[in-house]
């Protein structure tokens, strides 16, 4: 049993401490918006915030996540209107959508830490996340838009 702080709530997870956070979120807490893409820290589909930092949840155990503030896509905003989410709609970013929770979480963390990132800083940060559908050009535009409107 591990106690986690997820999206502002304290929850008990009935799993071993070495369970990857990704699977605890998805299968124990039923927060399915965090996706499994590779389990290897290579794709970013599983990106969540750990104390505000974009983190691969497949690479962190729940034992290590205990005590941290964990935010998933479900907790990014109450009604889906975080400025990054709004910019994502304005630029019509998603295609299949599978990578997009992770992309949005990484973009939101980037802007929280660096409200006016340069294009190069955007590219450098977002290189951690893969999108096989090829929404990259729109991701850049949406982050630039969110930065401007923020």
């Amino acid at each position, binding site marked *: 049993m591990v106690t986690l702080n997820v999206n502002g709530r304290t929850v008990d997870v009935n*799993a071993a401490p070495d*369970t990857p956070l990704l699977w605890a979120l998805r299968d124990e807490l039923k927060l*399915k918006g965090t996706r499994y*893409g590779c389990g*290897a820290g290579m794709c970013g589909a599983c990106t969540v915030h750990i104390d505000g930092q974009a983190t691969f949840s497949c690479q962190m155990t729940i034992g290590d996540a205990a005590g941290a503030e964990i935010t998933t896509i479900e907790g990014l905003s109450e009604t*889906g209107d975080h400025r990054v989410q709004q910019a994502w709609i304005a630029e*019509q970013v998603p295609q299949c959508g*599978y990578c997009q929770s992770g992309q949005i979480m990484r973009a939101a963390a980037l802007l929280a830490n660096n409200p006016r990132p340069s294009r190069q800083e955007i590219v450098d940060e977002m290189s951690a996340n893969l999108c*096989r559908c*090829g929404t990259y050009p729109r991701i850049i535009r949406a982050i630039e838009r969110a930065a401007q409107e923020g």
Partner: protein
Amino acid sequence: MKVHTRHPTRRGFLKGSGALSFALLATGSAAVLPSATEAQPLPDGRVTAWVTITPDNRMTIMFGSAEMGQGVSTSLPMIVAEELDADWSTVASEQVSTDPEGVYGNPMAGGILFAAGSSSVEGYFTYLRQAGAQARQILIRIAGAHWGVPPEEVTTRQSTVLHEPTGAVMTYGEVAALPDPVWPSGEMPQAELKLRADWSIMGTDVERLDIPGKTTGAPVYSIDVEVPDMLHGALLLSPVEGETPTLNSDTDARAVDGVVDVIVMDHAVAVLARSYTAALAGRDALDVRWTETSPFRKANSADELAALAAAADDMSADAVVWESRGGDQAAFSSADVVTGTYTTEHVYHAQMEPLNAVASVDADGMGAEIWLGTQSQTASIMIAAAVLGTTPDRIRFHAMQMGGAFGRRTVFAREQMRDALLLSKAAGRPVKLVWTREDDVKNGWLRPATVQRLDAALDAEGYPTALRHRIASPSIFQFAMPDRWNPETRRDLLVMEGAESSDYDFGTFQAEHVLVPRRSRLSAWRGIGWAPNCFARECFMDELAERAGIDPVSYRRRLLAGSPRALAVLDAAVAMSDFGNPPEGRAHGIAFAGYKKTLATGVAEVSYEGERLRVHRFWTAIDPGIVIHPQAYRAQVEGGILFGLSSVLRERSTFTKGQIDQSNFYDYEPIRISDIPEIEVRFVESGEAPSGGGEIGVPMTAPAISNAVRRLTGESQRRLPFVTGS
């Protein structure tokens, strides 16, 4: 095509349901759905309503095809809504999961539910327009009867019926709420379609219906499905195709906390557990021996590439003629023949959602409920029925949103569903079977490698008088769809399409397929045959132009002179890119490539930063016929170009002794955001009927980049991925 209407005495359902629903009939016509009590519900308990209007004036439109990111959940309903004169802001859409009456299938795909080859909008366009127009006529008739005015005087606008002479107005929702409507009797003629000038939905960038949900993590992919009492399954799959396991011991696996069962299958050992992590831990603890007798133990991708090269060059090798024009075969024996050889290596789909399936087999073993992301609901249901030895009506099927597909989820993904069914049946409980990324990479159904040899006999100016395009490759079709493979004709459109070069006039022309035995599992990949085949041809075109001392645009203009649509996209791409005038240190390359009826030209601007190839900009001019949703189409083109770029820079699957060498995104890495060019997409209007957009970005990209690199470095890149690619 006739409109079918119901006799007024059968209208009871309207009162009961408080909604007005239309059905699609097998003839393609629209009809008011018979009363809920009379209608035969589907096995999943639903009644097949195609369009439903509720008293709050909202409208739900069901669509065939399947959403995998290409936007059909918006573009197909747009076609219906346009002809229905709907207020788009009231429209929602829902994907069809089953089609027992055979009314939602794609007319271009033999009437089955099938989304592949960029065929959705093209296939459904006329069909849905007519049905939508007929549904509108039915609304008009009901309103006219209610008001006691002739239907000819009733018009529609924005989900409203109007009778101008009396000023009577009702929303569609109010029509749906009429307590005692009179339904039209008799048959109406085929409905007139709207003029293009009157369109207010088609051709506009309405917000895609699927996008808001995709920004909150809300979509449910099959990997997210939870069913009560469900077990999680992981497979230890045979390392080499065709081998069977012997279980030495499952003691350690069963000792893992949460593991419920270990089941030996013909090609795998499955571990079923209460959580996926437990299933994986159990799998790691298995002790299994494999037969190690598969002929694929001798299969190496390097040998395959060598065999393909030899076959392409061996003119005595048996070749299947795919396309032939003119007849002067002797031309190829003349002295002045120029040859170019091009190679494309194996590639893997890398859709972001690893393949998975959820199945719950009924207690009698003769029926099941299934959740699957598939490019063909119809094929999946047929396969599921065959696996259980039952009839399709016993399969309750949920077609889920797909986390990417790119060809992998057509018939090429049947194994997961089969295995989930067999495991659920054995366990007597629902099973969710998920491949890890490693399973997905190592069990890829690859786009086959090809070696392509082009021979051109040239006239004095350097233009071809004859051209032969010879493609050595194993057959995808024969492997993936053996029941539909014709061993007499051996025509494999999945390999050969795109080699027709039908817009070009080469004088004598022949495209031919030299079939080589497969050494891996095979499937189509985004761009299908067009991507490798246009790569070879367009690189060859540039090399011929250079040889003739003619610029690549003029050279192509002359050969494409008989195709005004081709010339239009060529000229537009040249203009938008200011072709041939790149900034210092960079070069431009051009390629003309189609995908079926869609035509395009792409221009790449490249440079090298040290060893690293950079593609800075990419322009494309495309003639896709009528575009239903320009924004979504552009997104498809951008995605296609990036897919093509990825195949240039680094995508390569290799295999040794029957095992794919790569494991995960660290050694099979699609391009990242740091690799992308600025992309500019322009539409060239021809007014043709819509043709697809999912593939068209791919075929032009690699040759445009290759041609740019040759201009920059003087060296030809005749292989995908490029040898010095990244």
